[in-house]
């Protein structure tokens, strides 16, 4: 399984590591505890054993007949799980006879851990677990003592092994709770750590977004050393991207200049003459002129790969047009007026916005009788959707019939060639609006003429 998130990877590895370490530590601690509990239990049993050994010694030298009074009530209570047993061994007959037992044994006997008359036994003392009366698990210590004169005894003391189990269980429960809490705390701190450690990445993402929004030219360089090279490379990439687009545009401009002047020369030369050659030249230069313009427009459109983060203030573009158009059409008494929202920003290249709005105002200005109005407004969109704004260009000219409007907004169509360049201008607008996923419509204007409506992406 591949985990796609860095924090996911870090968290998963930290969690696995943490759990493994805690599990091993827990097992080790639990085992150490079990041993020490067993040891403490054995100490108690050994104490009883010693007391019994001493009793057996006094029994054999006749000073006492009271054996096994250990003063512990659990050895008196029947089948309490605590027992002792003294067995007298007869070496000659190779037999073992139970001599005394604790009262708690009642009428039963303690089984041997190791048979006392087994000749293979190596030690005098041994310890281990047996199953005693009522199938209870018992911890048992056995000791062989030899008092000479064929006085050999085999003494067993057994305690309830459940006590060991209970204590280790209690400890294990506490241990488990502690370690689970510890593990949770560790994982929690890892989450915090991962969040903090990966913060620069989130910052980088925000910086790149800001560049795309056009709020910043570059992503900042102030990143930790692991991320800094990435930020640097990103900046280089952004610059290279801009550079490529700018160069492509410049070359298109240069090409325009380079071709248009010779064509002008040819056109003018041909117009001086009426020979068949001049006529042919005039005809062909006319075609060349159109072709050059067509392919230049195409080339420009191709360089219009919408560059990262280009943002254009709308107001300066509109202001420039309102300033310039009265000069372009100085002889025509048309007022150019702008209304509506200020401070809007277009998500795209300035040149494209100029082509969009310039061609429409130009068209309106050619047909208007006295007035062209440009109004800008933000378009309400669903929350979360990309913001948009609208540009309305109204004129009080003759307007267009619905069929003509349809034709004019179809791509690559020239509606009217009686006014120079008018149809071409609209087809550029149609192409550009589509490129920016905007819309372009023609309608009747409240001023009486044509209304051109553009909806474009805003920032």
């Amino acid at each position, binding site marked *: 399984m591949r985990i796609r998130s860095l924090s996911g990877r870090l968290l998963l590895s930290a969690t696995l590591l943490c759990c493994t370490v805690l599990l091993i530590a827990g097992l080790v601690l639990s085992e150490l505890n079990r041993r020490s509990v067993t040891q403490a239990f054995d100490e108690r049993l050994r104490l009883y054993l010693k007391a019994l050994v001493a009793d057996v010694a006094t029994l054999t030298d006749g000073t006492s007949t009271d054996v096994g009074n250990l003063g512990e009530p659990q050895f008196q209570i029947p089948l309490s799980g605590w027992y002792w047993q003294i067995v007298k061994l007869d070496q000659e007959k190779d037999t073992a006879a139970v001599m005394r037992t604790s009262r708690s044994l009642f009428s039963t006997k303690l089984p041997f851990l190791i048979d006392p008359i087994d000749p293979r036994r190596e030690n005098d003392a041994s310890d281990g677990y047996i199953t005693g009366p009522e199938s209870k698990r018992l911890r048992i210590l056995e000791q062989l003592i030899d008092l000479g004169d064929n006085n050999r005894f085999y003494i067993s003391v057994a305690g309830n092994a459940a006590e060991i189990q209970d204590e280790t269980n209690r400890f294990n429960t506490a241990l488990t709770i502690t370690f689970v809490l510890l593990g949770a705390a560790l994982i929690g701190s890892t989450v915090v750590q991962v969040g903090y450690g990966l913060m620069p990445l989130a910052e980088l993402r925000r910086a790149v977004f800001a560049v795309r929004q056009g709020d910043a030219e570059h992503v900042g360089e102030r990143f930790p050393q692991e991320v800094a090279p990435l930020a640097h490379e990103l900046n280089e990439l952004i610059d290279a991207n801009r550079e490529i687009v700018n160069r492509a545009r410049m070359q298109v401009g240069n090409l325009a200049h380079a071709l248009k002047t010779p064509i002008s020369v040819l056109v*003018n030369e041909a117009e001086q003459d009426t020979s068949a050659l001049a006529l042919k030249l005039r005809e062909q230069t006319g075609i060349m002129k159109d072709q050059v313009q067509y392919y230049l427009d195409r080339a420009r459109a191709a360089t219009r790969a919408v560059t990262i983060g280009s943002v254009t203030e709308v107001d300066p573009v509109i202001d420039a047009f309102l*300033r310039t158009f009265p000069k372009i059409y100085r002889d025509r008494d048309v007022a150019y007026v702008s209304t509506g929202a200020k401070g809007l920003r277009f998500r795209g290249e300035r040149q494209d916005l100029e*082509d969009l709005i310039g061609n429409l105002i130009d068209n309106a200005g050619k047909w208007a009788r006295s007035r062209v109005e440009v109004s800008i407004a933000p378009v309400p969109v669903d929350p979360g959707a990309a913001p948009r704004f609208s540009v309305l260009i109204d004129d009080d000219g003759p307007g267009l019939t619905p069929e003509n409007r349809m034709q004019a907004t179809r791509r690559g169509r020239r509606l009217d060639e009686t006014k120079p360049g008018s149809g071409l201008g609209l087809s550029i607008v149609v192409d550009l609006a589509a490129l920016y996923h905007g819309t372009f419509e023609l309608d009747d204007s409240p001023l009486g003429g044509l209304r051109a409506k553009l909806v474009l992406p805003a920032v």
Partner: protein
Amino acid sequence: MRLLVVEDDKDLNRQLVTALQNAGYAVDTAFDGEEGHFLGDTEPYDAIVLDLGLPRMDGVSVLEKWRKGGRRMPVLILTARDRWSDKVQGFDAGADDYVTKPFHMEEVLARLRALVRRAAGHATSELSCGPVLLDTRSSRVIVDGNPVKLTSHEYRLLAYLMHHQGRVVSRGELVEHLYDQDFDRDSNTIEVFIGRLRKKLGVDIIETVRGLGYLVGQPGKAKSG
């Protein structure tokens, strides 16, 4: 009317000069921005045709320098740059008109006529003074409904005076505006042309103001027709 053509393409420059001379203008030429700026700055042109992509100094810079220096003559930009931003930049720099290449000579001529006329404060292409009617579009002169045939020098002289009706025009000013740089500037020729012009028109609309120059129309009346 004296014009300046600033265009670095030699063929186009020649064609413009020829066409403008045929239309009755005196024409100077420059092939780069620096030369163009110098001429426009020092000579009194009635209009200038300016290319933008010029060697040594860009056309927009040339224009801006002229305007900063207080030169107000009409300037027509003739360029291959057809972006809206170029046009805005051109007009902001102080251009009066903007024609993009490839162009038709007729269009440039018509625009120049309009520029010259507008600079002199006339709204139509026909100028009149008393019985004399001058059509700048067809370069024809009509007196009392009868066409009068004038040489190009005579036409230029009359057109300049009629563009500046109501103002005394000095002989020096006439020389500067009627002849290109290479012309032999002898102001006496002006007197000869004035004499011929008076004879051809048959009506005396040109008044000699002693010691100052010549006057067409009523003094102080800036505009007519």
